[in-house]
């Protein structure tokens, strides 16, 4: 059991995405960075989509009220237990009375804290993931607050100490190169704008949420007056409103949209969207559909060796 001392800027409980409910307008939710959450869960021998804390910009602190096994992955700077530094990407065996603290990361945006057996959370529409705009799932449908109590679903049976292989530990910087493909309405972009989209460096806008990140710095022009009929969108879709400022959609993205879908982040790189913070520089790397599918197969086989993702749905199906 954990008692929250400081929730940081925004900490929510996230588990598997809500697959199959987009037809009712209910977004996926789940982790913004599905790979980092899977890595954290793996270290405590959980299913990869077991409910974790998603901690945005660090600043999280909690008291440990019962002995437990934890692990942390994602965007991390310093993690300490009662004042002494401990490692990310390693199973932590914490004792009653310990105080866990995480400082804000220099780069990247979100860290994932997994507990052996997963955190208890409210299930809505088949998932424990918190969807803040509608206030459901997770811990009373809201971000964590001071003095909230978090409980594991079960007791820790194993005290195996595991470490993420060095080659799979992500390092984040202030810039992101994301593979992307043309999509349904790419043809509406004027040639110069199409060129800019895949060759210029964009800056992540100030409103970076779990719904989307805007790409600023180059205003695009296209043959449209925002009157497109609403069509399905997904995390990874890049929409362009008539303002010409594209928006990349994330895990809490709406289910349909009427703005032209000018590109899509390749499935293999969508987990990185959860680590983009305002001001980060972003480049889109043009890929054919076939190359993107191959890139995905390559990344998945690298992860499979450690995570065993190939046969899992849920988190696995997000990358």
């Amino acid at each position, binding site marked *: 059991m954990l008692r929250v001392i400081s929730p940081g800027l925004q900490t929510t409980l996230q588990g598997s995405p809500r*697959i*199959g409910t*987009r*037809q*009712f*307008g*209910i*977004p996926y939710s789940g982790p913004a960075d599905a790979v980092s959450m899977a890595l954290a869960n793996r270290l405590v021998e959980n299913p990869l989509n077991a409910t974790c804390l998603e901690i945005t910009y660090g600043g999280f602190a909690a008291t440990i009220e019962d002995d437990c096994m934890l692990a942390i992955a994602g965007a991390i700077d310093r993690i300490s237990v009662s004042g002494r530094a401990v490692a990310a990407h390693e199973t932590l065996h914490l004792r009653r009375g310990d105080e866990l603290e995480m400082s804000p990361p220099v780069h990247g945006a979100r860290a994932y804290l997994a507990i052996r057996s997963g955190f208890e959370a409210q299930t*809505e529409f088949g998932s424990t993931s918190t969807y803040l*705009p*509608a*206030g*459901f799932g997770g811990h009373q*449908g809201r971000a964590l607050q001071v003095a909230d109590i978090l409980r594991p679903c079960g007791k820790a049976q194993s005290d195996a100490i595991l470490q993420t292989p060095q080659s799979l530990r992500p390092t984040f910087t202030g810039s992101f190169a994301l593979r992307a*493909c043309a*999509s*349904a309405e790419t043809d509406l972009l004027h040639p110069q704008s199409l060129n800019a989209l895949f060759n210029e460096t964009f800056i992540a806008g100030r*409103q970076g949420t779990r*719904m989307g990140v805007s790409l600023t710095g180059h205003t695009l022009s296209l043959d449209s*007056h*925002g*009157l497109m*009929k*609403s*069509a*399905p969108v*997904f995390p*990874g*879709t890049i929409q362009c*409103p*008539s*303002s010409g*400022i594209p928006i990349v959609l994330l895990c809490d993205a*709406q*289910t*349909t*949209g*009427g*703005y032209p*879908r000018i590109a*899509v982040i*390749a*499935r*293999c790189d969508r987990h990185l969207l959860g680590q983009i913070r305002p001001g980060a520089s972003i480049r889109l790397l043009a890929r054919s*559909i076939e190359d*993107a*599918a191959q890139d*995905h*197969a390559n990344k998945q086989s690298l992860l499979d060796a450690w995570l065993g993702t190939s046969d899992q*749905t849920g988190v696995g*199906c997000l990358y």
Partner: protein
Amino acid sequence: MRALLTPKRTADDQFEIAVETTAMAQTLARTLRNSDLTEDVVAGLNSVCIRFHPRHAAEIENRLKRDLKVSSAPAEPSKIIDIAIHYGGENGPDLEQICQALSMSADAFVALHTGREHTVEMIGFTPGFSYISGLPHEIKVPRLDQPRSRVAAGSVGISADFTGLYALAGPGGWPLIGRTEDPLFDAESDDPFRLKPGQRVKFKAA
């Protein structure tokens, strides 16, 4: 009416199929949801998108091209639901500007909006957001250039041929004409969405 369909690959893990009507999109989506190879099937107003693991792409494309035809299903008649709207002011901050652009009084706008029956065509965007057809052509306006980061639950917007009801607070790109206090979404209920595709509605000035 039956038509052959042409799937377009819109991502390494997505196909989209264009159809002629919203009813056809709903029917096709229901058919496609029976497939074991898809992760998700979502209908738009005149399209259906299938999401899948990229390793199944070839198989799905073969099945779509070989097997798939769609027929337009007859609409099921339903009882009309009345929705009371507080038009204009804080509830509908864009109504004044819309009326100015249309050279029309707010009263005339409300008379047009409440003067006929409308039909829920699709649920999407955010939980329970309803796309409702039947908007008179005299009050057709485009989306906002820059979406709002937050609109209140119950907000009523219009865009192109549709009235949109925001069942929950959230971001939104539709010009807002009013707000309803009628409950549209109940997370506690087994059947949380009051409006469904095919439902007929009539708007009243509250």
